[in-house]
């Protein structure tokens, strides 16, 4: 396994080397938030960022993607025949992705790469993508760990893990794609003390002791309680009375699903301009009434409570039961932070997990 060390100032130029062979995406500051953007001459990467507002999910699963094209011109012998939209999938490197966002692709893949259906666009873009992760113990109070996020040094979703040691960065390849990327980045063999420091940092992050100046807030439910979820019978949980109370403040605004790195739902739409048609796939959200609206006009999830319940049941129960890969959540906390009415998935998980038991309600 190749390891490389870069002094702080030498890291961005090393990343820039990747631009010869990859489209390189980096975190950039945009107003009050960070976002991933392609590194061209108009942007400046900021590797000191904590979390992007919108997850980098779109780099593999774009918010809008033209899948197929067609012509409605009757004179065209091929009219109304769907053809694949021409496009290529050049190699891309996402540099500075955080481990939770990388793990999110693992959570998502069961939807796009299944024994029955293999989504060609997802597969090709995923194959073309190298994830170069940034590991630094800076989780904030909205974050928590799940089966799919073991902490800031979780390497499972990554091709390269880059430890931020303050004075410099230590990068370690994790597999073939990572080896290739790291070879392109150059750099020096790390000294023994840098390697030792990485070990120390990993050990420290395993125990929830926090560096001075930072303190975990005391949310009503600081972690995501999931221990009993698997054993909960699904129908009574579905019919539980607490859903009305959970849903009451919800605006059905969709922020929680659009900002979620592990939400995978999409809608397919045709758009026709003159006589050229596009079949486009767009992100969708189970929070929207339109999501389940049938052509007949019937809506099986016509009520807000039903939609809110679906979001949490999907993430914390159906996914768990169906795939046996933990919950559909990497604990990034985006939904906790950005929900305009502060619906906190940890509190909902506590209710689901404790359902049927006499659980004490959080004092609030």
């Amino acid at each position: 396994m190749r390891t490389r060390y870069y002094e702080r100032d030498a890291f961005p130029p090393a990343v820039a080397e990747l631009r010869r062979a990859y489209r390189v995406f980096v975190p950039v500051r945009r107003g009050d938030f960070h976002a991933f953007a392609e590194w061209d001459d108009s942007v400046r990467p900021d590797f000191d960022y904590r979390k992007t507002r919108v997850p980098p999910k779109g780099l593999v699963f774009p918010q809008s993607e033209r899948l197929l094209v067609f012509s409605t011109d009757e004179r065209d012998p091929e009219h109304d025949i769907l053809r694949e939209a021409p496009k290529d999938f050049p190699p891309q490197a996402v540099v500075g992705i955080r481990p939770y966002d990388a793990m999110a692709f693992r959570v998502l893949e069961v939807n796009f790469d299944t024994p029955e259906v293999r989504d060609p666009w997802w597969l090709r873009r995923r194959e073309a993508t190298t994830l170069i992760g940034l590991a630094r113990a800076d989780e904030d109070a909205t974050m928590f760990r799940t089966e799919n996020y073991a902490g800031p040094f979780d390497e499972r979703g990554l091709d390269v893990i880059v430890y931020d040691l303050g004075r410099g960065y230590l990068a370690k390849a994790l597999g073939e794609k990572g080896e290739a990327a790291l070879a392109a980045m150059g750099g020096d063999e790390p000294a023994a003390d840098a390697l030792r420091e990485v070990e120390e940092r990993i050990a420290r992050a395993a125990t929830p002791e926090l560096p001075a100046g930072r303190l975990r807030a005391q949310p009503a439910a600081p972690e995501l309680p999931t221990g009993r979820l698997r054993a909960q019978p699904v129908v009574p949980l579905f019919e539980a009375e607490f859903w009305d109370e959970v849903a009451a403040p919800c605006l059905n605004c969709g922020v929680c699903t659009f900002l979620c790195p592990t939400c995978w739902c999409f809608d397919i739409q045709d758009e026709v301009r003159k006589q050229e048609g596009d079949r486009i796939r767009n992100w969708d959200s189970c929070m929207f009434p339109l999501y389940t609206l049938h052509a007949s006009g019937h809506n099986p999830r016509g009520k807000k409570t039903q939609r809110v319940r679906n979001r949490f049941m999907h993430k914390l129960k159906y996914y768990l039961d169906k795939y046996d890969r933990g919950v559909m959540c990497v604990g990034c906390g985006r939904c906790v932070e950005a929900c305009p009415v502060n619906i906190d998935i940890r509190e909902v998980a506590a209710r689901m997990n404790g359902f049927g038991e006499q659980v004490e309600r959080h004092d609030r």
Partner: protein
Amino acid sequence: MTDYTDRLRAAARRLLGEGRVDCFIGYRRGSLPLAAQPAILTRAEQADSLIWDPSCGMNLAHYAVGRADRIGIVATGCVSRSLVALALENQVARERLYIVGVPCTGMLDAGALRRRFPGREAAAAAYEGPRVTIAFADGNEELAVAENLARPCRTCAHPNPVVADEMLGEPVASPAVPAVPEEAAAAEARSAAERWAYFCEAFAHCIRCYACRNACPLCYCPTCFVDESRPQWVGKSSDPTDTRTFHFLRALHLAGRCTDCGACERACPLDIPVRHLTSRLNAEAKAIYGFEAGLDLEERPLLDRYRPEDLNDFFK
């Protein structure tokens, strides 16, 4: 502020206890510091979960729409204006509303406040008069609420409830504020091309989640135009033209109706200045017709009335 909490709890306890209302809409403490969560209480014993402090920013009028029961609700100036506008549009019934009014000195921009201390994690917030103290592991920060207001609160011209069945405190002075947010006003002084560039840039990173629409108490249509599929008024992809069309149409559907409560901007996860469009239309309604939405239960909505002295240029 703390005494407001006590008075609010007493009012809710009394109203629910005496059977004067079937539910009471207020806020309870959220799971994060600086956050409050809208709550709909149905029993007098729940009254003690209510809070009142500068984190109570999300417009509660939204929750009164579509309810058939008798509603108690705590209302600031902007919430009361939304309720008036909704009553005029027959979305809430005034006689089924019991409004507990609070004179408002403005609500915090919690997100911006959290981001103001990068790398430090707020553990708790305490409110004392016009100040908020945020506790961090390495010490407290004391800030003036007035200097950390949410954008809509910075230009609020009607902080006192315009209608209430009881008031929890004495009215506060109404500040003289610009009708159009500064950034939008600055944009207006420029050429059409520059304004267009400003608009495109300001809305470029919208993700079309529609939180701005859903948070708006006046956006209550059973099927929003963006959700219509026959005909499809606007494309659903992240194409910039469609995103801009959504914003134009959303703003125009609120012309003469928007009460400038700012719920849209509060809900937007990307801080898009969606109010710039509606506040511009509000300024227009005021300049041309002397009309401000949601001030008077006796005055019909702007687009629903005719007065001989109205500007009649379009007849020509």
